[in-house]
């Protein structure tokens, strides 16, 4: 019973992170029709930047300041995204989608090595934050307070993102572009600007996922490639381009994974891919996707 409670919390924790990655992937696909293979690398970059910043600041500043430094990774990744879109993606919009996919694959290779070059081959952590918060008792076991904070951040981010897309003027522009790019453009929307903003926003939330995961898990090389595949499973289950789908998909994947690690560790990942394949077969656009 006590193990179950901790595993339940763990699942929600993973779901928060996974939702942030998958929501960015989904947003970028929904608005720009780009399947961004470099998205996992953005998540890893957010983790590295935050870990590096906190690692350098931890000796000199009070620990409450460290919390304010958490989003640094997300902001940095958003800036990188805002540079990449006009430089590398915009010239290819007239071409078949295979080329965009390939450019993001090239970008993935470049970013992986750029992180290796900038941050070295050793894992980086921001464990000081996690340690400063301690843990609390859960039915006789102890659970880190920080993980609960991550769950809270994930929930707030999901709510804000939803409000942003469905309740603001910018959200209307996003959705209009996503539904009919040419019509939106004809009605006077600056589609180019919407694309930059959407891409940077998608990068920001992926970076945020990395930034908030790094106090509890070290940033390591290759974390992006692993994360991308799980995020793919999430958006395939939930539906490419759907925020609700990303949320439901992230929860489903996290719970199946946690149960898998507990009960069927050998085929835990295979089960996830099979679920994704099964969903694609029954509903090619995912549970919440539209064609």
């Amino acid at each position, binding site marked *: 019973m006590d193990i179950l409670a901790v595993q339940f919390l763990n699942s929600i924790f993973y779901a928060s992170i996974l939702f942030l990655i998958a929501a960015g992937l989904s947003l970028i696909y929904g608005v720009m029709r780009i399947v961004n293979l470099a998205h996992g690398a953005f998540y890893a970059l957010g983790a590295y930047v935050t870990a590096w910043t906190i690692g350098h600041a931890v000796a000199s500043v009070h620990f409450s300041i460290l919390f304010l430094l958490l989003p640094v990774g997300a902001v940095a990744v958003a800036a990188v995204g805002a540079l990449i879109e006009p430089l590398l993606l915009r010239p290819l919009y007239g071409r078949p989608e295979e080329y965009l996919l390939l450019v993001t694959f090239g970008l993935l290779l470049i970013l992986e090595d750029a992180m290796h070059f900038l941050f070295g081959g050793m894992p980086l952590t921001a464990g000081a934050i996690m340690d400063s918060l301690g843990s609390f008792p859960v039915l006789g076991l102890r659970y880190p307070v920080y993980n609960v904070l991550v769950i809270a951040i994930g929930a707030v981010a999901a709510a804000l993102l939803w409000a942003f897309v469905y309740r603001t003027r910018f959200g209307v522009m996003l959705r209009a572009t996503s539904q009919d790019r040419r019509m939106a453009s004809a009605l006077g929307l600056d589609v180019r600007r919407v694309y930059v903003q959407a891409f940077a926003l998608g990068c920001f939330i992926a970076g945020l996922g990395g930034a908030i995961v790094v106090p509890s898990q070290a940033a390591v090389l290759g974390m992006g490639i692993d994360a991308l595949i799980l995020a793919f499973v999430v958006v395939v289950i939930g539906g490419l381009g759907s925020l609700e789908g990303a949320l439901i998909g992230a929860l489903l994947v996290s719970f199946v994974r946690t149960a898998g690690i507990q009960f069927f*560790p050998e085929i835990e990942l295979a089960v996830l891919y099979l679920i994704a394949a099964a969903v*694609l077969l029954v509903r090619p656009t995912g549970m919440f996707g539209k064609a």
Partner: protein
Amino acid sequence: MSLLRPTGDGLSVKRSLALAAPLAVLLAVIPQLVDAYMTQLLTYGLIFGIAALGFNLLLGYTGLLSFGHSAYFGLGAYTAAFMVKYLGVGSMELYILGGIAVTAVVTAAFGYVCVGYTRIFFGILTLALSQVLWTLAYKFFWVTGGTDGIRVAYGKMTLLAGLVDFTGPGSYQRFIGAYYYYTLVLFALCVVLMWVIVHSPFGKALQAIRDNETRARFLGIGVRKYRLIAFLISGLFAGLAGTLWVPLNGLVTPDIVYWPFSGEIVFMTVLGGFRTFSGPIIGAIVFNFLKTYAVASTAYWQAALGIVLVILVMALPAGIVGGLKQVAGAWRARGRGDGAP
């Protein structure tokens, strides 16, 4: 310049042969001119060429971008490794037969599921299915050796039903030399086979499906069936390449089934030019040299390859062969223009 273009006429057979014959002679004499290491690299290139050739039947001729061809390559490779580890088989021909049989069964099953979809859904579905195989290779370590993989020593293997073996002194050099020609013959067979396929009515039907699915359907082409057959052939080429790769590499690990390797196969094909018949072959050979030198000269070889890929997509989307054709075409047009009154 249309000799290798898939829309060739009756003439193109002769012209293709005229171009292919000197290349075949060149490939046949190369090991006499270069050292064993170079020969080995070229063997890798030919093997990846077979995989890319098969991959391009889907991308270039059927219009389907598979992001899961690592699965079929890996099936061929792991089948051979299992035959060594669990059955003690030492004959290369048996590996190939076994690899083809296993790849055929799994590719048919995966293909049956995938060909109902196109565009990005096809890509993601092939990716997801290939990663099912990767997790199996990765997690069932007591069967597959996990990340340590399975060793396949060339010394215990024979070619041509036991006629050629590699024991005793100098065996490595003999292996590299013999294996190059072994691969070259299979490679040539694959090229001829693929050439016949894409120029056959079946190949033309695939191109019709690629260009306009609805029209192809109205013409009475069974789109789904044709795609499934193309998928199966494509997977079998990748599987054969995987089997051939094993003794040369000496080791099979789950990396060969992981999705970035599928990305490399796409990379090779686009590097050479997926709108041409010979593009994927050239791309595979060039990519293999490129990667080997990048790995040898810098720790950041991934970034180097990534930059090449980005520049390629930006500046040379038709690939090496496609780009050369454009240059040759422009040059010829200018020549004609000069000669006109």
